[in-house]
């Protein structure tokens, strides 16, 4: 894996959604607030966080399924969005390079189309096959790649189990031979025994095709397993970013520490012996986020500075970033 080449660069990306707060009032949900990071070619970057932290919004904004509010996205050297220079390129050619796998396979596959049609549609849009025979061969090849049979091409999505539907979703994403795939909670709707099948398949496909993944999930154990690096999000912001084993064994940000201590371990002795950091209360609303550090309302170590000043994501150890005032020396 070459860690040097940056495939995707995101700078100060923001995504706000408008919501009505009253007849005349309009409020904005700050779903993603000033997030900057890079994804290297061939790596898997995991994004974790609780529901409502903006991880899915971030994933969708990066491939511009949602139009960003402001910021900059550079893909392989080409800016595809830049609010300052007013760049917003036509995404169609980029859709061939950037794809997404959705969380709920039954909701993301058209129930009136056969599996062959679903996969074939992607081929048609990008004009990847010249004849119907070539198209059929390609669909069969894709089905084979994700572990389905060629007869499955004539069936409808409801005839498949959840795990098989997710395989169809993956085949559809792979149809255009992308370089980069956003995996948005691809396994959380699946049964435990099926999850590992899909995880292994994603890993194999990555090795075979040199894919780059942005892997979004709330299950940290899975994310740690599949990712090279992990980004932790809280209330629209990235609070920690680093090598996955490093982040999990030496978490710097108090939120990451709590998150890790909350994960139940399948080991009765260890899980009963450990001391948990329990958080008070719930996640504040992203419509009206707390001032200063967004985590200060629940942080056990919050100081006055945390309430007033927003911490920036800084590199503390080589390759390990965190946004917390407590980590500043002196």
């Amino acid at each position, binding site marked *: 894996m070459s860690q040097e080449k940056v495939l995707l660069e995101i700078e100060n990306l923001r995504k706000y959604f408008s919501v009505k707060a009253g007849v005349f009032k309009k409020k904005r949900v700050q779903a993603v607030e000033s997030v900057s990071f890079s994804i290297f070619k061939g790596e898997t970057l995991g994004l974790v966080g*609780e*529901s409502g932290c903006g991880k899915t919004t971030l994933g969708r904004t990066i491939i511009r399924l949602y139009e960003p509010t402001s910021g900059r996205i550079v893909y392989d050297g080409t800016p595809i969005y830049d609010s300052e220079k007013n760049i917003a390129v036509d995404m169609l050619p980029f859709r061939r390079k950037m794809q997404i796998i959705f969380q709920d396979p039954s909701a993301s596959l058209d129930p009136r189309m056969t599996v062959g049609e679903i996969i074939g549609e992607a081929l048609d849009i990008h004009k990847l096959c010249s004849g119907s025979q070539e198209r059929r061969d390609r669909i069969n090849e894709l089905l084979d790649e994700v572990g389905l049979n060629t007869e499955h091409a004539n069936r409808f999505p409801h005839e498949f*189990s959840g*795990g*098989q539907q997710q395989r169809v979703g993956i085949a559809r994403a792979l149809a255009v031979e992308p370089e980069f795939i956003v995996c948005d909670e691809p396994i959380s709707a699946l*049964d*435990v*025994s*099926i*999850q*590992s*099948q899909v*995880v*292994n398949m994603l*890993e194999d496909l990555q090795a075979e095709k040199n894919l780059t993944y942005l892997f979004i999930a*709330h299950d*940290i*154990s*899975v994310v*740690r*397993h*599949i990712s090279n690096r992990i980004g932790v999000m809280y209330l629209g912001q990235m609070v920690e970013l680093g090598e996955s*084993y490093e982040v*999990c064994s030496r978490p710097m940000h108090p939120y990451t520490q*709590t*998150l*890790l*201590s*909350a*994960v*139940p*371990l*399948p*080991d*009765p*002795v*260890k*899980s*009963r012996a450990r001391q*948990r950091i*329990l*958080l008070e209360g*719930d*996640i504040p609303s992203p419509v009206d986020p707390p001032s200063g550090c967004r985590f200060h309302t629940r942080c056990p170590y919050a100081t006055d500075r945390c309430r007033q000043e927003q911490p920036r994501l800084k590199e503390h150890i080589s390759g390990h970033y965190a946004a917390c005032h407590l980590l500043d020396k002196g």
Partner: protein
Amino acid sequence: MDEKKTLLSVKDLKVSFFTPAGEVKAVNGISYDLGYNEVMGIVGESGSGKSVEAYSIIGLLQSPGKVIGGTIEFEGENVLEFDEERMRQFRGNKVSMIFQNPMTCLNPVYTIGNQLIEALMCHDKGYTKEQARKRAIEMLELVGINNAEKRIDQYPHEFSGGMRQRAMIAMALICEPKLLIADEPTTALDVTIQAQILELMKDLQKKENTSIIFITHNLGVVAEICDRVSVMYAGHIIEQGPVNDIFYEPRHPYTKGLLASTPRLDEETKERLIPIEGTPIDLLNPPKGCNFGPRCKDCMKICLREKPPFVEVGEGHISACWLHFMEKREEEARS
């Protein structure tokens, strides 16, 4: 822990759903005993019958589901023979239940207090309205809801997900039941909230001495809270034993497979996951032999012909697999 006395004894329970496509044997002959003050975990994938089994204990099984065999004895009485009135008294008073999604279980048009007090008044515990309200406030405080006196007059939508689950727990425990059935109570919650609820349940279990049947698919949650574990697959319990045995010395290939296929936060090095191949069986056409046979990597001829009986593989640890017979024979041959 006093496990000598049995609170609940389920014997050869069979539940089927009569669908237009045919009979689905959702629960196919399961048996277990639950002691006073014991926490039993029931683990299994979706469709393994773990919820159906719990619904039959509390009499909430809905048509076309039907108990077609076996007994459920609660303190020596067969629950399945209760008439409706008896069942209504039994439910909530002796046994109560918390569900996966608190929002769908709380009535959105009544205040939290209203619903808590209703539970008390229904079971005629001799409370006046004022006393009942006081007791409801106490319960909310017990489950860690701050400002309970104000909160009691709020509606479910004013509560966050974690708070709603706390309110559900308060409601379930308000009549001091002896048994609490928790059906995936933390699955819909975020991990940090899940941790809060688990700590709360552990705490309350000690304080109130309630027995709990904890239904989940999350092995981590089971490891944390349960004393004993039953692993279910396709309507059968396939392995049952003390929590440490199940996690450190699993014997059934399915249990082993489940543990090997779960990524762990505490693993030292990155190893490839070992998945269980195939998909769960179709309960409309179950196989003749062992239900797990078609997916088992150690499947033998006999596994496809006959269902394996339970074998005692440790103290209080049973497992249903033909492999154990092979192991026994090998052992005998050696000695």
